[in-house]
């Protein structure tokens, strides 16, 4: 067997090469194949929590962003059954929080919303939780609106792994999960978060947003008005994609 064939797997029948240590997600992204994901960014250590990247590997359910690629693996990704699963997961994330898209500055730039469109979601479907969550407006440049948080942990990892700080943490148990701030008062204004930190930009939804920059890009010209979530996630590999275009 030659070297190339030795390190390959198939995704929906397509042969995809991988190198040792790569996950299924790594191999897919490198080959330009989109596996939906929310809690994953290539530059950060995978978390494996949102389960949007769920694939079936030889019939077993696996998270593509954490599961190591291996020789001859047969991965099912873009199937009607998995689209249904992922759509349900997105609906679950919507009903769990308080997502009032029309009033949210992230609309059109929000990955959760874009995934909803991508997966053909038409309603929240499940009874909403209407949780009570705290808003933190103490920071001069940023606002933390927990109503929209999906517990993806991207801000936590970006702060620790890229910014070299430790601003955020996930706290609580079960449905009570929430993001907390590692500062004496627990307030963002008391933390060393800077508006240029990756953690300030990485939120896939509108939970961490810049202050004093409302609705600068008109609706219709935002990221996901111009690109599908698949295009944008593959093309960029770019941690800053949710930044405003004219920044």
């Amino acid at each position, binding site marked *: 067997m030659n070297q190339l064939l030795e390190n390959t797997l198939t995704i929906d029948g397509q042969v995809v090469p991988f190198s040792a240590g790569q996950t299924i997600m790594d191999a897919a992204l490198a080959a330009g194949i989109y596996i939906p994901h929310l809690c994953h960014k290539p530059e950060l250590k995978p978390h494996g929590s949102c389960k949007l990247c769920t694939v079936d590997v030889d019939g077993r359910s696996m998270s593509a962003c954490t599961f190591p690629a291996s020789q001859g693996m047969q991965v099912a990704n873009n199937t009607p059954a998995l689209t249904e699963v992922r759509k349900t997961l997105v609906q679950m994330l919507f009903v769990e929080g308080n997502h009032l898209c029309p009033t949210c500055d992230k609309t059109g730039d929000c990955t959760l919303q874009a995934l909803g469109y991508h997966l053909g979601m038409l309603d929240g479907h499940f*009874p909403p939780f209407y949780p009570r969550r705290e808003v933190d407006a103490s920071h001069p440049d940023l606002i933390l609106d927990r109503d929209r948080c999906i517990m993806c942990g991207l801000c936590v990892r970006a702060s620790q792994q890229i910014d070299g700080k430790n601003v955020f943490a996930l706290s609580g*148990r079960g449905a009570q999960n929430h993001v*907390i701030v590692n500062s004496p008062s627990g307030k963002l204004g008391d933390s060393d978060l800077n508006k240029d930190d990756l953690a300030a930009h990485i939120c896939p939804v509108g939970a961490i947003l810049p202050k004093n920059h409302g609705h600068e890009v008109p609706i219709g010209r935002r990221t996901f008005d111009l690109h599908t979530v698949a295009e944008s996630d593959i093309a960029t590999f770019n941690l800053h994609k949710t930044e405003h275009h004219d920044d």
Partner: protein
Amino acid sequence: MQQLLQGEPCPDQAVNGLMPHLLHQLHAIQQQYRYIPTQQSKQVSETLQLPLAQIESVIDFYSFFTRTPRGQYTLLFSNCTSCGDLALMRELCQLLKVEQGITRTDGLVSIDETSCIGMCDHGASLLINDRVIAHLDSTRLKQIAEYIESKTPLDQWSPELFSINTQIYKKGLLLEQPLEQGSALTAAFKLGSDALIQTLKQSGLRGRGGAGFTTGMKWEFCRQAQGAQHYVVCNADEGEPGTFKDRILLTDHAHELFEGMTVAAYALGAQQGYLYLRGEYRYLVPHIQQVLTERRQQQLLGQNILGQQGFTFDIELVVGAGAYICGEESALLESLEQKRGVPRIRPPFPVTHGYLGQPTVVNNVETFVAAAHIVSKGANWFKAHGTEQSAGSKLLSISGDCTKAGIYEYAFGVTVQQVLDDCGASDAQAVQVGGPSGTLVHRKDFGRQLAFEDLATGGSIMIYGQQRDLLKVVRNFTHFFAHESCGFCTPCRVGTPLLRKYLDKIEAGHGTAYDREEMARLAKLVKKRSHCGLGQTAANPILDLLEHFPHVCEQRLLHQEYEPFFNLDAALETTRQLSHRDDAEAHLA
């Protein structure tokens, strides 16, 4: 108690000689203040050199830590279907004029519910300031209420209230003949590590904690893994409702458990072991410490164990704080590392990357006990019992609607019917084998066998007689999982509360056939797509009910196409409270 009422400090280390650990520190603070004041978490953060956010996130994860003061007498009633009776809880609330979950204004008492406390063979039970009172009935409640109102220190309460006397109804391989102390170690030294592991593999011993992984292989993988240190961890979290066999082993067979752990240490070359004990069993701490001290005195722990030059091993005790998920082995390791008990991504597995990233063996209490026996008595002695794929015996914790609740040790392969006959359960309509995460068995299937190849069980057998409402039972389990979900992954964090909503709606008589179908669809998703064993089993009770007892659900359904979740009458509750009205006119029909 004098101390307690005056709110004096009673730090863990001084009381029980427990090692410094975030959970122990927080427990001491909770003891002293009845909650964790922010100022204290800051201090802990400094003492233990951990980020403040880590302390805060741990406080909010474990049920036994609170942000607002609980009563000087903190009572937690089990809400398990075997050792719980919430009607009794409400009765005591009335006696003491206190509302569930809200500390009485004088700060004297608070009453709430908690997940199964492992007293299932003792009827309705509660925890009061880390101690257990079982066999609750109206008489006992009155007694308790009087002691509390008169502020009698717990030490002066009738000791009889706290007595726990578990019946062992059937002894088998492990319980029949206790091991002589040191005999397994002597045998281990004779065999050497390799032969010892071979013996375990030949014996066919599989993990007793539920998953049933071959123990000899686990030890071998760990032994082969590279690491600066190897660790041995005993999982004594025993959180599965209906299970209490580890409690009995910890009480009466602790020497054999520690001997098994020490044998493992010898096989792996480990120097440090940990026993992770569920917080509900804190009352066992002095006893366990005593056994550890004895073993150190007898050279069964410590340096050059039994004169074996260079073999050094000791065991520390870490006590949890109310989180079922910490029984999952990787969550347990996170908890040992002073973090929230969130299951890790696998691979890598604990045998290569466990405690502090080092190769670690995690085994159940019973597994270590069995391993000690096997090393001492040989593989064949063990393999001669049980079935082809399930060698040896299994300790069962039997509770529910039977006349003889207690511990039974059977060779694997015994039928459910045999077990029911032996424990005096003549009118069972269903048996929950393996706890809520296991299988709900219909009486037509009572001929099935308890064994890994048929009905696997970590040891929980809960029996439900004809008069039980199975929908209520399944609802109880579904609430349990929603309460205990760690919240890490979407399917379980959102799915388990949703399943709870569906089941509540159906139980209340508001569910439609559509709700049932949606619940089933969601149940399958939660089962298949969740991150860890908790989510992967949380929907089992619902799926088993729908498959084997469809009429139980059918009977409750509304025969109309659609009914909203929103309940107008329930929504008026706040208004009723504000207007102090609860008469018929204040309700919608």
